[in-house]
């Protein structure tokens, strides 16, 4: 297991290095001058040139790249052009809202979708199954912002049950933290409920056709035991994979939800950084997201051992 872990970690290094080089180069060939953006609309070309020089953007590309590599090697992602804050600190500031939202969303999605998907498979072709399939289509189709506006109008503005917007940190208390997070998490979970429920349904359906299910039933086990201990447990690997990918996607890309609910997270930071051509922040974020993907995938792979005893690393 340890050997596998080390091999996997070692294998991530070239991948991250390639991502780093690509991001660095792509940003430099993308149209847009950070200095012109920072200077404001009324700045003269001379003023923009001075700012460009101060940011080190006049240095040859290779020099800029090696400066950045040197910074990364020392654990420093540099300083944001736009926010004038160390990128590491910027990411740290925004990590809690995004991580909280992502985890709560996945928890809500798993708690709803796995039982639904399992029941739909059990009652394949019945009203529950058909309803779930219908809901899945709707869940995939309704844009997140539309759903968000409807929920805000109904549950916040009309009924006053939840705040329209904002985020409270865990340090402000668990109550306020959860209260502000429920509506965004519910909004965001709809698409994941649809996705995970469909995957669960398909996997459980496949498992239910296996011989060991017939054996379990022949042994006289209750249907709930057959479903949970035999069918669902054996169908877990694809579900865990989808959940893992979902977590990684949520951490990197909940821009719309963060915007509508005013959650100061990583998605919004990424958009702001891209719009401002804030090279150090974009580079730092992409590196962070790459490492996160690798880490989550590693966790998912390791979790297979738990769900399938035949797998050994």
């Amino acid at each position, binding site marked *: 297991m340890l050997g596998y872990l080390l091999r996997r970690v070692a294998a991530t290094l070239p991948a991250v290095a390639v991502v780093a080089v690509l991001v660095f180069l792509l940003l430099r060939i993308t*149209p*847009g*001058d950070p200095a*012109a*953006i*920072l*200077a*404001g*609309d*009324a*700045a*003269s*070309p*001379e*003023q*923009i040139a001075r*700012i460009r020089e101060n940011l080190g953007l006049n240095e040859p590309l290779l020099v800029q790249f090696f400066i950045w590599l040197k910074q990364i090697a020392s654990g420093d992602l540099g300083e944001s052009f*736009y*926010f*004038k*804050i160390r990128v590491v600190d910027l990411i740290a*500031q*925004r990590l809690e809202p995004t991580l909280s939202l992502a985890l709560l969303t996945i928890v809500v999605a798993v708690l709803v979708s796995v039982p639904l998907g399992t029941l739909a498979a059990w009652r394949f072709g019945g009203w529950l199954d058909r309803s779930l399939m219908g809901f899945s289509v709707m869940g995939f189709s309704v844009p997140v912002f539309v759903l*968000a*506006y409807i929920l*805000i*109008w*109904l549950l*916040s*503005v*009309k*009924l*006053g*049950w*939840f*705040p*329209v*917007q*904002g*985020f*409270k940190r865990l340090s*402000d*208390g668990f*109550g*306020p933290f*959860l*209260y*502000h997070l429920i509506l965004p998490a519910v909004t965001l979970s709809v698409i994941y409920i649809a996705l995970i429920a469909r995957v669960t349904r398909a996997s459980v359906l496949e498992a239910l056709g296996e011989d060991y299910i017939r054996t379990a039933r022949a042994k006289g086990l209750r249907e709930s035991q057959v479903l949970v201990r035999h069918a669902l447990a054996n169908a877990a690997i694809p579900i865990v994979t989808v959940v893992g990918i979902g977590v990684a996607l949520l951490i990197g890309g909940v821009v719309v939800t*963060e*915007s*509508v*609910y*005013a959650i*100061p997270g990583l998605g*919004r*930071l990424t958009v*702001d950084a891209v*719009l*401002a*051509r804030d090279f150090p922040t974009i580079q730092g974020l992409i590196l962070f997201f790459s490492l996160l993907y690798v880490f989550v995938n590693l966790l998912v792979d390791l979790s297979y051992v738990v769900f399938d005893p035949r797998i050994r690393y």
Partner: protein
Amino acid sequence: MLNNTNTDGGGFGAPPAASDTGCAGGQNRSAQRSRLSQAGGWLKGKAAVVSMAGLALAACALTLPAVVKAQEKVLNVVPHSNLAILDPIWTTAYMSRNHGYMIYDTLFGTDAKNEVKPQMVETWLVSADRKVWEFKLRDGLEFHDGNPVTSEDVIASLNRWGKRDAMGVAMYSFVDRLETISVNRFRIVFKEPCGFVLEALGKPSSNVPFIMPKRIADTDPFKQIAEHIGSGPYTFKADEFKPGDKAVYLKFRNYKPRPEPASGTAGSKEVFVDRVVWNLALRDGQAGLSALIKGEVDILEQVAFDLYESATKESAISVLKPTIGLQYMCRFNHLHPPFNKPEVRRAALASFSQEAFLRAQVGVKELYKPCPSMFTCGTPYGSAIGTDVQSKSNMKLAQELLKKSGYDGTPVVVMKPTDLMSITKLPDVAAQLMRQAGFKVDLQAMDWQTLVSRRAKKDAPAQGGWNMFCTAWVSPDIWSPINNAALDSRGEKSGWFGWGEDAKLEELRAQFLRATDDEGKKKLAEQIQSRAFEVATHAPVGEFVQPVGLRKNITGLNVSGLANIYWGIRKD
């Protein structure tokens, strides 16, 4: 010009009234049920009501801590954009300017009648030859760190501003030296009489000559300041500042407001709230309005045009229209064909019916008005003199002018920012009108930041340059021939994109800089405008106001339109 928190009122810090949370007694529960039934008949079944009630109970349990939180007067504001740069001299971004008004003070201010009034200055004297100006600061001015404001601080601040701001640079071209006379008196000695000293020192928009402590003002003007201490009505809570999340300001208890009533950026800057929180995370217009209606925020700096009508129907909020607005402008690139010829530019100008731009971009009749003046209608230099080519524009005239100009069919590259809703439709209208006039138009879509970078390029359009872009300016940034960047006609030496060149216009502007009497200035401004239309430096394409939304319990908001400022506001 475009630059494009959870708040403590967001449910916990300053919670909504109990009835709003749905956690009150029987009467409120009854109101709750009534609201439930008003929700459009969405929740018909018992099961739905029961599950909703369950959610409500959970929400009640979670909100309980909010009720016991101590109350302080917190003003929750949703600004029009994010605040990232905290140095209002380093950038011209309006958010940085507004931040500047919170924590810094100015020597002079501009009142609601657009007249310059003393602010930190108590008295001033001008020598007979108008070359020496002496200023005395008010007593009791104090920085947030407890140090008194001295003339050394003022001189250092002006010196830094004079290296960055267009009007500051213009004023400093007249300056011989600045001298300290005493702790609270200083002198500016000019090489020759300068006609806009007070206008420059009291200018309300970017870059505003804010006064900082000398140790901060001594920072290289091309590097951002690292400390944020001023002598203005609010102190900045640097430890609570999170760009993209929130900026917090506290009432500066030692601030000594002027006795005159607040007006524009002048007069009393008395503060009636303890704390102002700028919600920098809430940038969705619809969600912002919902938060305002629900009472989670007190002021929404920009109510989107498409939400204006529904906002005005909400009983809990007011929607105000600023007195002075903004101007939409389309700028020609004078360096490259076809707009290197004034005749071609005039043809485009003649095709630009302002109503078409305004109807497409703003859409709400009461929020816009056509105005051909380059200096904003209703301001001292706003007039219709020399504007015939546009004020009486029509397509036939445009077609004739284009035919006479010898236009050879060179495509006009118009840059369209797709992500900036406030101006995104202007290029479409410009392109369509020019096509009707006979131009061949290449409308290129891009994001605003790409546009900002590309417009700085002097290359030919085929090599990545451009022919035209449209933008918007707040009135104070264009209402004078000195700071109206599009009138700078020094060619490639010109400070602003488009690089217009016209010796006669520059001569008139030079005279304006030296004019010292109001009547003479007005006449020169008229001549400058006439000449600018003659050579078609740019095209003003209409004016509009950006409505502000606020809760009914908020009074005293300054809607002069000069800047977004937050003193004089009461929250009942």
